[in-house]
């Protein structure tokens, strides 16, 4: 099996400097490295201007990198842009629809561009219109639709075709919760069929729910890459443990303080603690506390992706670029 069959997206030491007309060139990508495995949903997270969209533009052959290499399905984006385009479809950040055409015509023309046999175009268009709740708008011109509906048309298009790699740049922006759910389901379904999906989003909950692996990007570099559990484990505050007793006794606090806790606070009946998973066994702690006083209720909450995100980017923002970890 070729390398690209395992990793359809491979980026090595990618640099993109925007020179433009201004005196100060902007380094949008600064030695970025990453690989995305086949059938994986890979999320790129980062603040505005972190380099996510630039990376998608390079990978979709809209711009050329300043240096480094990027390959899609084993094809170099600079040397073989046409071949790369044959294996991708993309939802770009901007709304991209044929406003003068109807919803159905938008889907039909997209199908033609992606070489779907003519007799299958209608069938596939019907299928995605049903999936994205567009059936009642099929003959309506897109110019008359709301922003959210336009976005739906744009996203629905990419699920008409069977390209091995899909780029989604903030695909669910402007969608209502129901259609957002339909989009996430479609993404998952297509990944299950073996399509590789690279997406950017600002909605961390969405990334948490959807992505197999995540990269947090800042100032054109990957600060961290890994699966959700691995990334969450990087948070300083790894777990919150809240334990409720019938009554709070001093021995409870005494027992808890024997453990290396990051936070310890008590109310009249509840003990609030934060622990780092690698340093304290949650079960051992609960067991010790239950021997002091019967536990009425307990809750263990792991750190959210948002915690890690804010922690990593908060630091890199204040103290300059953080080291690359993966």
């Amino acid at each position, binding site marked *: 099996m070729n390398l690209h069959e395992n990793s359809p997206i491979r980026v090595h030491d990618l640099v*993109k400097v*925007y020179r*433009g007309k201004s005196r100060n060139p902007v380094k949008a990508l600064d030695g970025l490295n990453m690989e995305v495995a086949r059938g994986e949903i890979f999320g790129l997270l980062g603040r505005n201007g972190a380099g996510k969209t630039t990376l998608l*533009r390079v990978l*979709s*052959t*809209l*711009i*050329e990198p300043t240096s480094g290499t990027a390959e899609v399905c084993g094809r170099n984006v600079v040397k073989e842009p*046409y071949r790369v*385009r*044959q294996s*991708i*479809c*993309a939802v*770009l950040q*901007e*709304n*991209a*629809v*044929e*406003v*003068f*055409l109807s919803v159905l*015509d938008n889907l039909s*023309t997209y199908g*033609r*561009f*992606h*070489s779907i046999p003519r007799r299958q175009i209608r069938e596939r268009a019907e299928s995605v219109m049903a999936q994205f709740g567009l059936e009642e708008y099929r003959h309506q*011109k897109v110019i008359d639709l709301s922003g959210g509906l336009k976005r739906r048309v*744009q996203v629905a298009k990419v699920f008409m075709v069977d390209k091995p790699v899909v*780029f989604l740049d903030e695909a669910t922006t402007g969608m209502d919760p129901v259609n957002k759910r339909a989009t996430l389901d479609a993404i998952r379904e297509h990944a299950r069929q073996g399509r590789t999906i690279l997406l950017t989003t600002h909605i961390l909950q969405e990334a948490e729910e959807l992505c197999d692996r995540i990269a947090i990007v800042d100032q054109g570099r990957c600060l961290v890459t890994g699966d959700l559990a691995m990334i969450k484990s990087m948070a300083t505050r790894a777990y919150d443990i809240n334990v409720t007793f019938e009554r709070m006794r001093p021995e409870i606090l005494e027992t808890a303080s024997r453990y290396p806790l990051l936070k310890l606070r008590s109310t009249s009946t509840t003990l609030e603690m934060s622990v780092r998973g690698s340093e304290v066994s949650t079960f051992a702690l609960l067991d010790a506390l239950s021997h002091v006083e019967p536990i009425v209720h307990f809750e263990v909450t792991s750190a959210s992706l948002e915690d890690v995100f804010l922690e990593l980017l908060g630091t890199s923002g204040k103290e300059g670029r953080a080291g690359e970890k993966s």
Partner: protein
Amino acid sequence: MKMILAVMYREYRIRTTSLTWLFYDMFMPLTYLLIFGIGFESAFAGGVAVAGDRMGYNAFFLAGVLSMASFGIAINTAYGFFVDRDNGIFYEFLTYPMTRSEFLVGKILFNSLLALVQAAITITLGAVLLGLALRWDLIGLVAFGQVLGTAGWFFFLTTFAIRIRRNDMFNTFLNVAYFVLMFGSSMFYPVESLPRWLQAVSFVNPLTWHTDVLRYATIGAGAAEVVALEGVAFLCFLAVSFALAVQTIRNPLRA
């Protein structure tokens, strides 16, 4: 070829969403000939001279109307980049599985077909309504000139439409280009009757080359060797414009 046909299909779908616009587009050159041409035919009752031959103004102006129509279609098609950019679809297009050349050629092939229909309407009804004596044996050359002319101007304007990101700036550029190219050419008057400095402008103006070829093909006016040379010059202009347009669209974000 599949991709070129897909681009043509897309252009066709968009054009046919407004039949009024399409109708106006098709009959505009004839209207120009009927109003402007007849007005000037009356004003220059003695006709105009080209390479020593005298002819009526309408016969002279027919080629001007055809080249103006080509130029107009090229402007509309190039302006389409702004519309596509505003709708976000332009950049998405460039991620589709086609080469940049296929994209440009598909766009212009469809619009050249429109130019051909325009020319057919203008020539046929012009001949019937105004009694123009035409060189029907050279009608193939008219078609050829109309397609290549539209393509040449489209490729020329594409480079500017993609480089100039601002709609208002492109409008200004078009106004200046339209004014200088049209009035500094043989479109409205014979070059021989112009002052020397304007003749010099006209001789290096591709719109003159295009119009002269069409004039020769419609009414046989002009010296064949000069027109042939102008035809070759226009083909060079087309080739250079195409290369520049493809080069420009390879880096559409100017990044």
